Structure formats: structure tokens, C-alpha cells
């Protein structure tokens, strides 16, 4: 019957149109999703010479593609943490006046064990192990 034919054609045209739109959108959405680029897993980095950092001072060093914070608490006392604030991803810094680690973005503070002291950070900083090899400071991921 003509009415049935018309309905069938409407479905075919509508379905074809929807399918063609979907065939444009799907690759576009997949294209916008960035591909996974595997990063070389870094477990240990050299953080410079012992004499480069005075006691009660900190500096940011590269730990693979991410920043790490190395703190020389006293002559032979070192600490290292991931420098990425657990709140909103800013990079933290060592404050020699308060002997704490501070994030300038939202005023979060951590102690020298990486634990949250105040402010909005929800978790502690990841702590790294520090060894002194001769006059070189080495930071490594804890086992």
C-alpha cells in the first residue's frame, strides 16, 4: 500500500540520515580524545650536588615529567616529595620561615612528612626516598 511504502521510505531516509550524522560525529569525537602516550617510568633521578642546596631550603627538580620538591631540612637531613598539590594540581614550595610546604594557589600547607597541616588539600604529598651518593643527591620512588 502507498501509505506503507511512504512509511518505509521515511524510515529508510531517516535512518540513513541519522547513520550518516553518527558516522561524522563518531570519528570526530574519537579524534578529539587525545591518544595515550606512554611515559618512560622514572624511579630515580639525580637532584644535583649537595652543596647546591643550603640547609633549611628547598628546590623543585624534575622527576620524569613531573616536578618534585627536594628539601634540605638540616646538614644531613633531606626530604623529597611530589611537588604536585593534592588539591588542584598546583606546584608547591618550601617555606623556610615556617618549615612547612606551602601551595600558593589555595593556601594549603603540609608538614615535612608530607601530611596536610591546613587548607583544602585532601591527601598527603607522595614522599620519595633521598640518598646522598658522594656529593650527589639522588631521589627515588619508595618501594
Amino acid at each position, binding site marked *: 500500500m502507498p501509505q506503507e511504502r511512504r512509511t518505509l521510505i521515511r524510515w529508510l531516509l531517516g535512518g540513513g540520515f541519522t547513520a550518516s550524522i553518527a558516522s561524522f560525529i563518531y570519528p570526530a569525537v574519537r579524534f578529539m580524545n587525545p591518544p595515550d*602516550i606512554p611515559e618512560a617510568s622514572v624511579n630515580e633521578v639525580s637532584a644535583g650536588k649537595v652543596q647546591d642546596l643550603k640547609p633549611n631550603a628547598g628546590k623543585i627538580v624534575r622527576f620524569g615529567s613531573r*616536578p618534585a620538591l627536594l628539601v634540605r631540612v638540616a646538614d644531613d637531613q633531606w626530604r623529597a616529595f611530589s611537588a604536585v598539590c593534592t588539591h588542584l*594540581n598546583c606546584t608547591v*614550595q618550601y617555606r623556610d620561615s615556617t618549615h612547612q610546604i606551602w601551595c600558593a594557589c589555595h593556601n594549603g600547607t603540609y608538614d615535612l612528612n608530607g601530611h596536610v597541616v591546613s587548607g583544602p588539600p585532601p591527601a598527603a604529598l607522595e614522599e620519595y626516598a633521598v640518598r646522598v651518593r658522594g656529593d650527589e643527591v639522588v631521589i627515588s620512588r619508595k618501594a
Partner: protein
Amino acid sequence: MPGTGNPQSVKGWFEERLGLASARELLAHKTVPVHSATMWYYFGGITLFLFVIQVLTGMLLLLYYRPSPTEAYESVQFIMTRVQFGWLVRSIHSWSANLMILAAFIHMFSVVFLHAYRRPRELTWLSGIALLGLALAFGFSGYLLPWNTISYFATKVGTDMAAAVPVVGQSLARFLRGGNDVGGATLTRFFGFHVAVLPGITTLMLLVHLAMVQKHGMSSPPWIRGSNRPQMKFFPNFFLRELMAWYAALGVLGSLAAIFPWELGEKADPFISAPAGIRPEWYFLAPFYTLKLIPSHVWKIEGELLGLFGFGLLALWWVALPFWASDRAGMARTKLVTGAGVALLAYLATFSALGYWR
């Protein structure tokens, strides 16, 4: 249909092809209500004017800007120091972005306090809110382009907030960053959003908004009643006044851009700490300060997630304003809406000020 003018003249030639008579007819009948709050009608036009300035100065900046982490900062530095009037063009682009967002906020609050969102203007409100969201997205994406320290950390924070959205957060953050972290891929992506994606969507949304304004005309506040309300002709009376407002906006913009040139700051370095005193642009200060105040955990919920949830609810409530602005019987809740507007304005003003000074 043949035109009404002489087809031998230039005017008549265009008349025959474009049918300008109907546009003139439309303009001749378009009127604007005249009352004590008429001045607030100019802010929509001022926002549009500043958007046009954005487009024009943006096109000029595109001639020199290079969107890569190794070249972006240097190319903006080049524009500001070597290109003739480069400092002025960039300063006008940055200042007009800020003034445009300010004008859009004033326009939005004037719509609220004059109750212009009422039926049948719900779609005008929704398209306007979408345009405000797009303006903020322009601000956020454009902020990263000079690739300086402040913009780098602002983008880290902004995209990490997206990561806190339940279920889709991580994918959303990866989509925005173009990878797991803010880097070169983010800069390229934000550049694409800023100069292609957002302008395209904004143009469409702007057409919808203007078509809605044209269809429904200017709304009169509910306290102005009666059939014999004073009106002025849109053209030339209102149009010439609007033109004067644009001149005033241009004067303010030019003065600000020349007297307070927009600074470039330090080049972004992913391996330095966020500097003390870091804060976002003024229009993101209120959520920024709110996030500072929320503790790490409230009961068992992470503070960041709670903040995001709160902002989401607030935005949803505000977007839906025309739909809760009247009760089921259709009676307008003007006092409730005015109160909500005052409360939101007070929150934004207070928290922005605290975010700036503390």
C-alpha cells in the same frame, strides 16, 4: 519582487537585489520603551560592541602569534616590543575581554532586576546565559595563550577542577588538556578553542539571541503598566544613543589600554613552584576564594568535590531562573527573583573582593 527604487541608480540596484525596503519597514516600526531604567538597555549592545573589538584585535594578533610552548611567550613578547602598536593591540584585546565580561554581567543583572526574563523570553535568557558561559570560556582559553606562569597555573587548577567531576571527570580533563598534564598539547588545543571552536558557536548563539530580542522586542519592567506607555523609535533615536554608548565604551577601553598596558609576566615553567599571590582573573575570583575556604573534607566528602557540586547546583538554579520565577498559577515571584539577584551579586562581589585582597 521588483524594488521600489530607480533600478538605474546604485541604491535602486541594491534595492532590487536585497529588498532593503522590508528591513527599513521593520526598523521604522521597532520601538524601545522609555522609562527610568531605559539606560540598562544599552549594555547588551555594549557587550556586542566589545565582542566585535575582540574579533578585530584577535585577527590582528593572529598575524604574529605562534601557539607552541617554545614560541608562544616569545611571539607575544615580539608583538609587544617589536611590532608597531603591538602593545596597544594586545592591551586592547585583553582589556576589551575583561570589559566585555563586565558588560555581560551588568546586562545579565539588569535583565534580572528589570524582570525581562519572563514569558515568552525564556529562550532569550537561556541563549544569553549560554553566551555568558562562552565569554567565560573565551577568557579561560585565551588566558593560557601568552604561556606565562600565572596562566599556566590557572589552567592547571581549572582543568583539575574538571577532573573532579564524577564519572566523566578524568576524560573531560584529558580532553581539555590534550593529555594527562597541562603542556604543549593544551596550548594548541586552547588556541583551537579560542580562535575557531568558540567563535563558531558564539556566532550561532549570538544570532539566536538577537533573533529572540528582535522577535519579542524590549521588555518593560512589570511595574510599568498601561497601554499608553512612552516609546522611542529604535531607528534613529535608540540607535544613535547606543552609538554614543559605544563611543563612551571605546573611550574607557582606549584609556585603560593606553594608561595600564596589559602585562606579560614571566614565561611558564612547569618546574617552578606556583608563585605567592597567584590568583585568577577577577571573574573567577569568587569560586577561587570559595575553594580556598572549603576544608579538605566535609564529613566524608572531599572539599573539592563539594565545591564543584555547589557551583554546579548554583549554576543550574540560575540558568533555570525563568522557570521558577513564577508559581504554578503563573503569578510572578518578582520579590523572590530580586532577592536572589541581590544575594548572588553580594556573594560575587564579597568573595571576589576577599579573593583579591586576602
